[in-house]
């Protein structure tokens, strides 16, 4: 880094701190008060970190879908959040049709949840491959704005599919009377307090439900990373991301690799859909937009195109949001999340971990 650049960064840092201190108090920033509250009750801070970790894991799974696709074809797939929403609906439909609820036996529940996992992943993966084939591939060599608009179009289509799906009470009576109303998904995950069960005396609640979400999300992310770093197909994906033409010359079937990327991204959206459905217990056709926005932010925060970055970004956003809900004010939470994004992008324009899988000059 040149001397000049260092100076500039220093100045920027001062400017940013000044602006945050100036505007922050309107958005609930009161450092002495927050410090006092943390000192008075450190357990609360820990509790909120755990809440943020669980929520962040979910954001991270969705963020992976954005980052994978961006890494390989440099397209911001705006339809991904809505695909995830359809994942929630698929899972809800499987659960609803099977008729299990909170009172069902655990073996029944496990079978249904696994079934929902498979159906939802397969459905979303297939759908995503089709979306790529018909909405993005014909535009692959068009200017970059064209597939972006196409993605927004697909997003609208999927939202309306969700709305229509929610109205199918004739076939699925559990959808309730109203197509657009949020639907309640049975609370199937076991919920017992782990810390209490281990005999630790504390006010912190950490349930098996939270643990399951964090573990499943971590396993999905680690296996994805393994797949991309250690397998032949993963290598082909990385090669395609670096330079499509060169990869083609090396004998890699580009179309297949891109389809595979969408397949994996879709499967993750489906799995994420089930996870969120069981964790938050709500299915509503508009949920894809909000989830997508947070996830996209996480992907950018971590460095879009970078898988580890997406995970970090997701968890970071979850924790910032929980921290803001606790110590600032929930109405400003989105403002804080995006403020952190802006600040990080000022100093690291390519996100926390830069852009490693894609080769852009």
């Amino acid at each position, binding site marked *: 880094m040149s001397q000049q650049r260092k100076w500039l960064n220093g100045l920027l840092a001062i400017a940013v701190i000044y602006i945050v201190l100036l505007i922050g108090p309107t958005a609930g920033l009161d450092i002495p008060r927050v410090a006092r509250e943390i000192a008075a*009750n450190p357990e*609360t801070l820990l509790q909120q970190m755990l809440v943020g970790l669980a929520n962040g894991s979910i954001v991270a799974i969705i963020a992976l879908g954005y980052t994978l696709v961006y890494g390989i074809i440099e397209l911001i797939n705006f339809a991904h959040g809505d695909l995830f929403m359809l994942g929630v609906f698929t899972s809800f439909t499987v659960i609803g049709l099977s008729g299990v609820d909170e009172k069902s036996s655990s073996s029944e529940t496990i079978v249904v949840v696994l079934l929902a996992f498979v159906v939802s992943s397969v459905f979303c993966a297939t759908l995503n491959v089709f979306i790529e084939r018909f909405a993005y591939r014909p535009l692959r060599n068009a200017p970059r704005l064209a597939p972006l608009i196409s993605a927004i179009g697909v997003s609208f289509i999927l939202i309306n599919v969700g709305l229509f799906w929610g109205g199918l009470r004739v076939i699925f009576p559990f959808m309730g009377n109203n197509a657009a109303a949020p639907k309640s998904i049975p609370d199937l995950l076991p919920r017992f307090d782990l810390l209490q069960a281990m005999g630790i005396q504390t006010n912190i609640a950490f349930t098996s439900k939270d643990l399951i979400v964090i573990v499943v999300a971590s396993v999905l992310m680690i296996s994805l990373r393994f797949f991309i770093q250690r397998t032949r197909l993963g290598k082909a994906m990385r090669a395609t991301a670096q330079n499509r033409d060169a990869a083609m010359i090396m004998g890699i079937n580009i179309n297949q690799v891109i389809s595979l990327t969408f397949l994996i991204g879709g499967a993750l959206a489906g799995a994420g859909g089930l996870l969120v459905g069981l964790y938050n217990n709500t299915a509503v056709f*508009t949920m894809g937009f909000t989830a997508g926005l947070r996830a996209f932010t996480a992907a950018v925060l971590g460095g879009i195109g970078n898988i580890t970055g997406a995970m970090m970004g997701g968890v970071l956003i979850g924790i910032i949001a929980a921290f803001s809900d606790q110590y600032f004010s929930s109405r400003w939470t989105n403002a804080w999340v995006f403020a952190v994004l802006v600040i990080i992008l000022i100093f690291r324009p390519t996100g926390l971990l830069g852009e490693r899988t894609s080769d852009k000059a």
Partner: protein
Amino acid sequence: MKSKILLSILLVALLAVIAVACAPAGPAATNEIKIVSSLPRTGSSKGQTDTVVNGIKMAVDEANGKVGNFTITYLDWDDATAAAGKWDPAQETENANKAVADKDVMVYIGTFNSGAAKLSIPILNAAGPLVMVSPANTYPGLTKPGKGEAGEPDKYYPSKVRNYTRVVPADDIQGAVGAQWAKQLKATKVYILDDQETYGKGIADVFEAEAKKQGLTVLGHEGIDAKAADYKALMTKVKGLNPDLIYFGGITQNNAGQLLKDKINVGMANDKVIFMGPDGIYEDAFIDAAGKANVEGVLVTFGGVTVDQYTGKAKDWLAAYKKKFNADPEVYAIYGYEAGKVALDAIARAGTKDRKAIRDAVFATKDFDKGVLGKWSFDANGDTTILTMSGSSIKGGKFVFSTLLGQ
């Protein structure tokens, strides 16, 4: 190239034909009077507004679509969009402008959401003024000086002549009786949340003021992000403050269901910490959203009498409604009917197709008993003189009346 020119000519010709077909049929005054309603007809308010529209239709049908020499046409407009899933500011503005432009529109029944009324009142006020009769808005600042924010309600009436009335009592009463009810239930520490909309924040502010007056401790009051995926962090914070009642000022469409779920998720069961809300969650959609298991014991206030408590003419109306539509009305249906009745009565008394005269007639509504709510009048602000409120709780997935409030 030639084909392109031909195509353009064809297109222009087509547009011309459409324009001619759609143009107003000249200045010839017709005897048609249009009553329009602007309600959220898409999204999860639809369950509620379906029954409101039915109520209005009933009123028009009973008059056989005629008042004196005038033919009454009722139009059911939507101020919601699928993308928003609830009322949409742009759509409501468009509806208001459409009503202004159509010279046959004499009464505007709406809106459902108070935030929407803020947009359409000034537009209609400058056009005649065109009178509004709302079957559902409860935000006090729309009509009552000093009960809303600074400058309200005068800023909505640029022509200085009031043109907005409502057949439901406003929230300065509903929010207050909510707090009084909380006191009766022996709650001492309350936490207040709202959805940051005109209606939700308005009623939550009234609740807060009255709660303090009643000697309850208000632990905090904050707005929620209506689009958030979950509220675990927020509810964890609330739990740390140890309230015995949580009040949510807001509507189902702003995520009331998820809020309740996460309240229970973090360990505040309904029998330990009461969850109370206003009429914005008094609909089946709320029960669907939160899940039957979670809504048990939730308390809801309503600015009127609930369906299961109808007596006299209201009870007869209920039977007629069920017979006609083969379905149960939701709580606002009867106000749709009453609004329709008021509009028709005003047109009859005005006896002329003139927006100003009909506005005057609506505001002159006194000791009105042609509807089914009993004998009531509009005061100078356009508010109803009926003040009866009720409190309900949810039992077995149904709203059950528990007490009359505010008397």
